[in-house]
Structures are given as C-alpha cells and as structure tokens.
C-alpha cells in the first residue's frame, strides 16, 4: 500500500472539508444560544426544546415519517420483485426494455419525474396530498431497491433454491425459507436507502403534494426563504443524523459478507 504523501493528505482534508464543513457548521450552530444565526452565543439546546413546541414543524415531520415508512416499504416489495424478475426471469420478452425502465428513474432529473407525476395526477383527477407524495416516492425509490437487491441476487447460488425444491419445498416456501433470508441484508439495505431518499426529497414532493401534506424538507425550504432561524438548524441536524444512520446501516448491511456463497 502507498503511504500518504503530504499532497494526498492536503487533498483529502480539503476534499472532506468542502463536503462536510457546511454541515458541520450547521450542526454547531444548532446548539447556539443566540437568536442571531451567525453569532455564537454559547452552547444551548434551547432550539431543540423550542422545536418540540413548534406544531407546524412537528406536523411536517410526522407527514414525512409516514410517507417515508410507507413508501420505503412498498418500494422494497416492488423493487425486490423487479430484481427477482430481472435476475431470475431468464430472457423473457421485453427484458431489456423492462430493465431500462426500472433503472431510468436513477438518472432521470427529479424535476422531470415530479412534473410528469403531477401531470398524471391532474389528468386522472387524483386529489393531491399524502397519497400522491407517497406514490411518487415509491416510484423513484423502488429502482434503488431493485439495484441493491439485484446485485445480491447475482451472487446467489441457485443450487440452494434447487436443493430446497428437491427436498420437497414448494416454490413459494422455497422463497420464504431460503431465498428471502439470504437476500435479507440487501432487502433491508434497500429499505434504508428508500427511506433516506424519501426523507430528504424536496423536488418531487413539492410537485406532487397538496394541502395538508407538507413534508419536512418543504417546510424547511419555505421557512428559510423568510430567513434562517436556529430552529431550522436544529431540525436539519436531526435530519442529517437520521439520514447518516440510514445510509450507514444500509452500507454495513450491503457489505456484510454474502452468506449465499458456501465457503
């Protein structure tokens, strides 16, 4: 292994600082006692306390949580099924098209996804609100689940399933007794990822939401336009902590040694 040269070290420090310094400052200032965001007035958790009494922010957080839990769960089921179809379906008719369509939302600009969903909901006269945001989140997060689960399935030893069938398990029983437990880390990682994505989505939610279904990112965005308050810093810090936790868990589970391979 190559040792760190001083140039590498400097590059690394600047790179990480560029990425994380703003977030770090945000976290620090969320513990600021002063009302003026840019002036440090000593350590305090008063903004977190105040946050707990801010009805509108709490409402938004509750909406976000519900949307996240529901959309992540549905996206996980759909994404896992899509991954199974892609890996296991063999060369069914339209496979290339299907795989392209599953993965297109990964690279699709959010504005386009949001706008097209909005047009769809308007066209079918669907009342916009909690359900439309949830459906929109399912749409864009299921492809991430599909990618994660697919990579796990590709390294899966098919003879394990054949062994289960051979021993008399029905195909359905085989899926739940053998396949699912072995791809579970990827499925959970996919759920975490979908949940994190839903939690911090602003663009798609803005397009598809309606009255009474303001998500936390939308709330923050609208408040910031009226000036940054320390309260917002506190909310953001909590969000950063949640997303970090989700992404970390997802990557740890994803990297966990694949038990599908017999050593």
């Amino acid at each position, binding site marked *: 292994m190559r040792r760190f040269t001083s140039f590498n070290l400097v590059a690394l420090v600047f790179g990480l600082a560029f990425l994380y310094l703003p977030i770090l400052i945000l976290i620090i200032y969320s513990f600021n006692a002063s009302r003026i965001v840019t002036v440090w007035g000593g350590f305090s958790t008063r903004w977190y306390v105040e946050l707990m009494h801010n009805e509108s922010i709490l409402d938004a957080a509750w909406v976000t949580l519900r949307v996240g839990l529901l959309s992540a769960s549905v996206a996980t089921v759909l994404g896992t099924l899509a991954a199974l179809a892609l890996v296991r379906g063999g060369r069914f008719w339209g496979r290339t098209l299907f795989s392209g369509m599953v993965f297109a939302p990964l690279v699709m600009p959010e504005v386009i996804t949001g706008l097209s969903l909005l047009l769809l909901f308007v066209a079918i006269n669907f009342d916009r609100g909690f359900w439309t945001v949830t459906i929109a989140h399912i749409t864009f997060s299921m492809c991430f689940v599909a990618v994660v689960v697919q990579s796990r399935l590709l390294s899966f030893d098919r003879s394990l399933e*054949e062994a289960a*069938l*051979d*021993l*008399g*398990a029905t195909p359905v029983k085989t899926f739940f007794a053998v396949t699912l437990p072995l791809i579970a880390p990827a499925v959970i990682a996919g759920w975490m990822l979908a949940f994190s994505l839903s939690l911090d989505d602003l663009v798609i939610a803005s397009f598809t939401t309606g009255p009474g279904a303001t998500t936390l990112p939308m709330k923050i965005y609208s408040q910031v336009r009226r000036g940054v308050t320390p309260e917002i810093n506190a909310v953001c810090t909590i969000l950063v902590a949640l997303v970090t936790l989700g992404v970390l868990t997802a990557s740890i589970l994803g990297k966990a040694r694949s038990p599908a391979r017999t050593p």
Partner: protein
Amino acid sequence: MAKMLGPVRRAFQPWNDPSQPPFIEFRNVTKRFGDFTAVDNQSITVYEREFYALLGPSGCGKTTLLRMLAGFEEPSEGEIFLDGRPLTGVPPHKRPVNMMFQSYALFPHMNVADNIAFGLKQEGMAKADIAVRVEEMLRLVKLQDFARRKPAQLSGGQQQRVALARALAKRPKVLLLDEPLGALDKKLREETQFELTDLQESLGLTFLIVTHDQEEAMTMADRIAVMDHGRVIQVATPAVIYEAPASRYIADFVGDVNIFEGRIAHLENGGLTMTTAAGFTVEVAEMPQGVARPQAGETIWFAIRPEKMVISHERPPNATTNVIEGEVWDIGYLGDVSIYNIKLDSGDVVRATRLNASREVERPLTWEDRVFLSWRPDAGTVLVR
C-alpha cells in the same frame, strides 16, 4: 465357467436378467438448449439397488441427464420413467428423488440439524419423529457432535457428509449425486468412496452418480455409462470398461493406455495377427466382442494397458510376436509402481509400469537402457473404432 473380466463382488447383475423391470428409464430423451444439443436421443436403463455412474468430460451431457431426473430441466423430447411411472410434468418438489449437489448447497443460515430436517418438515412429519430421524442421520454420517454448527463452521469433508445426510433423510427412492467428491482431497475422497458404496448397499438404495473422475466411477459403480457429446458410448461394469473398452476414446478416457494402429495380417481360431505401423507383429487371442468380424487387411487398433507389459533387459526367449524393443526415455517413481516411458526405434513412446515389489533391485532399469517389452496374447484388446 466363462472367463470373467475383473473381480466379481457379488451376484448382483440385474441388467443380465430379462425379467427384471427397469427402475429408472430414460426413453429416447433429447435435451436442447437453443442450438446446443446436450443430450441426443438417449435411452438409459437403471435397475433397483444399482450404483450407476455417468462418466464423461465436462459438457458431455451427464449433468443434464441428472437434472432432468431431478426435475430441474424438462426433456425436449422423450420421457423419463421412475418405477414405471412417467415423470413428465412432475415438478422437482414432488419427485421421490433427492440430490446431493456438487456445491453441497447447504443452507448457510441453518445449522446442521435444521439442514437435515428441512426435507422432513416439508413432508409434514411430526416434530418428535423429525428429531429421531435427524439423530439417526447424524449418527450415520458420524456428525452427532456437530448438530448445532452452521455449515460455514465445518470442514469440506464434514459439509459433504451433511449434504449426504440431508439428501438421505427423506429416504428417497433414488439418490442423485452430482460430482459429490470433487471438492475433497485425495485421501478423504478415497475413504468417502468406500463409505458411499457401503451405505448404498446397506440402505438398499439406487444411486445415480455423475462424475468426470474415472477412478471414482470405477471404485463405486456397479455399471458405468461413458458419455461423450450428448451420447452414451458404452455401458458396462468397471472391469469391462477398463479391460474391453468399446472404442479408442473410452480406452484413452479410462486409465492409461498404449494404442497402436495396424492392419490385420490374418485371422485364426477366433484370434488374429496384426502388423502395426510401428513395424512389429501383434498376436491377439480374442476378437473384440459385439462388433462385426473384421476382414484381413482392414485397419484396426491394438490397445494395451501399461501394467500388462513386462519389461526386461534381455529379449524373451523364442518370442517373435508381442515384443518390442526400445530405450528407457523417462522414469516416474510413484512408490508402489514406477512408470517407464520407452522410446521405440520408430520414435513412438510406449508407457509401461512395473510394480516395485521389492525395496532393492539387483539391476535397476535406468535411463537409456535398451529394454524389451513383451505381453501375453490375451493382455491387450483390439479396437475397430
């Protein structure tokens, strides 16, 4: 009494008994994958309690045959029968056969006992009965102390035994073994080969094994079907396969062999004399069986195994046929036997082996010695293909 090829372990020869019904029958089975024909219109008959080996190089279609019997593949044409019943359309989980996989395919998230119990649970067997059967299977494969271990905590040999126990737990009518010993080292493999044969005999099961290892097939099987390019080219007992192979391909695939091309000089008393391209004369006591009688002048091949030739420094007295002269070119000392590569004056290299029966030899063979190789008229066999 008729002359026998090789040892006769027991009088178990259902294939010679016309009244014996077939247990497993592949009837004109063809399997195609796209343009590739893996199995080409083959009919195979296996009898109850037989240990039957499908032997061949990779890609010869042997595994496809096994997978069709297990139900993982359906034949493109033809039918498979088990105990008189057609298996067409029966899904794998409803077939009374169990398979031991090449990769063992142990469920990594279950411990040894749960792996063995898996098939029994699917049957809906009572919990207490499952426990008894699992205990019995663990004893059978000598893994009583490992019931709570996960497969990853076992050695390759132990995993192989768990796989065997799991496949046997349901008392299947037929056990299918797909290269079962491939991952084991040589010593363990030899031990396991004998254990498997003993087990098969004591349980009275029908075993169908797929292997590319001729030694494995020879040690264990009652009969071997040698396959090549989707076809079975000879079905016979190990001794017949070795001593009377049906073609040059089989002679070469199973064991070491020297093959000489030549022409028939004349035929006499059921035997023949041939002149080889290398310039010596071979006298063969017996004509090959089951082929049309060859004519004088026809091209044939003479095959002789290395251990059936005698190496000597002096020309055997009165010998004019079945003797060749050459120079020791290479020596391989294997401990129990030594392999000698003898270069003939024609440039051909012939392989002969000699048992190292004593520890010291008065005049050992060494490099560049002039030696004679000789053999009895019944030591080799004539091949027409």
